[in-house]
């Protein structure tokens, strides 16, 4: 945009933009994430906002079923779902209804669910609507602590279910590291664990690390953390005064968007022996990167007023030296209260297998 930039607002010049921001949900913040994660996170936040807005006894004490099926495709032409626009303002009753949703729950279409047992509830979706294969969520307000049950494979696979509390989320660093451990074990640890489009090695035999390895690790972590911390917003690559943070985990008050809690700032570093074209990195390069990472994590945490900061190193060097890469910054990290963690990424599956066998022999 040339002259004027954002000051040129035409007929909107005198509008209350801040009022809009305070009233709106954070829809769109996760536009780069997979549909299923957006859907699950959107539903979780919608329910929490509805409970905060209307109390937990306004809506009927019957389950609400959400299907990631925006067009309300159905094998029952007699069913005519009613559309509920601006659903994210949480003014619409949710319980006792079967919802057809897009990955961004700013709108939904619903049909009323009759009072029925759980088996019938599942059969309505799997048999009558034949939608047992679409990602689904069930909010169950009947339990002592209301639960959101997530069926990523759909209600046709009821055994694959994750249960989420909608009144509380643990975002302590130990919990964050637990999630990263899982991401590491399932998606990062060896070349074969990595997705085709997310390969971290340029040439694994030669230990050449892909140029954009850090960005790829960031995306793996962002998806994994957002998928596990559905009530939070996992943001990345935001320019702030002191630089640009890699990952921030924050939570917004469902009733007051001006109240946000920044739980953690994660600074990510990929440690290399060789670059993507074979150029070598010295030990001093690595030490400098680690030290810079500690300082970055501390300053980003301080600027955002976050509760915790961590430096997460993904070690793609020749040798696994464990926590030794932090030996020169232990005092610095202590002084700035930055927690240090490292994960070793193996260049070959053979190297990984040997490491597993050696560790069990010990």
């Amino acid at each position, binding site marked *: 945009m040339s002259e004027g*930039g954002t000051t040129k607002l035409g007929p*909107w010049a005198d509008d209350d933009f801040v009022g809009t921001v305070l009233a709106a949900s954070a*829809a769109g913040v996760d536009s780069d994430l997979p549909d299923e994660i957006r859907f699950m996170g959107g539903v979780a936040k919608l329910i929490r906002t509805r409970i905060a807005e209307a109390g937990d006894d306004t809506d009927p004490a019957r389950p609400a079923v959400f299907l990631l099926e925006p067009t309300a495709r159905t094998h029952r032409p007699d069913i005519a779902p009613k559309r509920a626009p601006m659903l994210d303002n949480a003014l619409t009753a949710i319980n006792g209804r079967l919802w057809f949703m897009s990955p961004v729950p700013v709108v939904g279409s619903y049909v009323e669910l009759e009072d029925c047992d759980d088996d019938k509830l599942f059969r309505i979706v799997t048999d009558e609507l034949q939608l047992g294969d679409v990602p689904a969520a069930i909010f169950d307000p009947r339990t002592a602590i209301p639960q959101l049950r997530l069926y990523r494979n759909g209600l046709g696979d009821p055994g694959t279910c994750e249960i989420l509390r909608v009144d509380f989320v643990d975002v302590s660093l130990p919990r964050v590291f637990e999630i990263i451990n899982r991401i590491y074990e399932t998606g990062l640890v060896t070349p074969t664990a990595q997705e085709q489009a997310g390969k971290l090695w340029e040439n694994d035999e030669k230990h050449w690390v892909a140029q954009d390895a850090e960005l790829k690790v960031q995306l793996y972590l962002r998806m994994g953390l957002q998928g596990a911390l559905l009530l939070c917003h996992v943001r990345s690559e*935001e320019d702030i005064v002191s630089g640009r943070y890699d990952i921030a985990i924050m939570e*917004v008050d469902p009733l007051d*968007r001006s109240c946000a809690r920044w739980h953690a700032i994660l600074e990510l570093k990929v440690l290399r022996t060789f670059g993507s074209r074979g150029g070598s990195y010295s030990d001093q390069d690595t030490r400098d990167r680690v030290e810079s990472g500690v300082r970055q994590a501390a300053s980003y945490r301080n600027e955002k007023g976050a509760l915790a900061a961590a430096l997460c190193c993904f070690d793609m060097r020749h040798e696994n030296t464990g926590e030794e890469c932090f030996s020169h910054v232990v005092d610095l990290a202590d002084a700035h209260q930055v927690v240090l963690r490292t994960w070793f990424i193996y260049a070959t599956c053979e190297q990984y297998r040997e490491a597993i066998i050696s560790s069990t022999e010990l």
Partner: protein
Amino acid sequence: MMAKSTEPASDYDIDDLRRRIRLILLLDAAESAGLTPLPILHLHTFAYMSNVLSPVWEVPVLEGKVLKRRGNPFYASLQYDLDRLVGIGVVLVSNVSHVLDEDQRWRLEGSYCLHRPFADRILQRIKAFEDEREIIHFIQELAYALSALSSEDLGRATTEDATYADPIIDVGNVVDFAEWENVNYSANAARHFERLLPSGARATQGEMLHLYVHHLYGRLQSV
């Protein structure tokens, strides 16, 4: 951007192709957002929004101007291309009727959606181009944002849009935001949200689109 063929095509052919591709992308995104079958004027509104808000996503504007009508924007070229896509079976039309529009002229009314067996193969080819994938991403997020509006509100969305509803431009004149003029109030307004988040975070491109539509909704309710 489309791949260049070995034989240079005329500008007309390229523009024609781009418009048809845009139509397919709009209808594909509308379906994912639960908006299909999309009434004709909603489709033109969606096309207009995809033009005027392109700068927010930093993708090229397809058509930087439109004739201001009493009701919704209407692109004659887009309608021509849409009819051709119906003719070759890529797009399906339903609920066909005729209505008297705001300018007291009869026109055909209908609702549109993609005919998947044909459209999916085209979409698959389009997605092979990186630049097109970015445009697809933008149009999809815009569709999600617009889906928050009721059908009635989407039908009159441009009556409050920061650019189309500019009272300085009279009906019958051209609303120009990216051809000869370079002031785009709509994109400016969307970007204005970037630094307003109360959490202290900066709004992403996706958030800016949703906030723009949310604000538009507020204006529509206050009319």
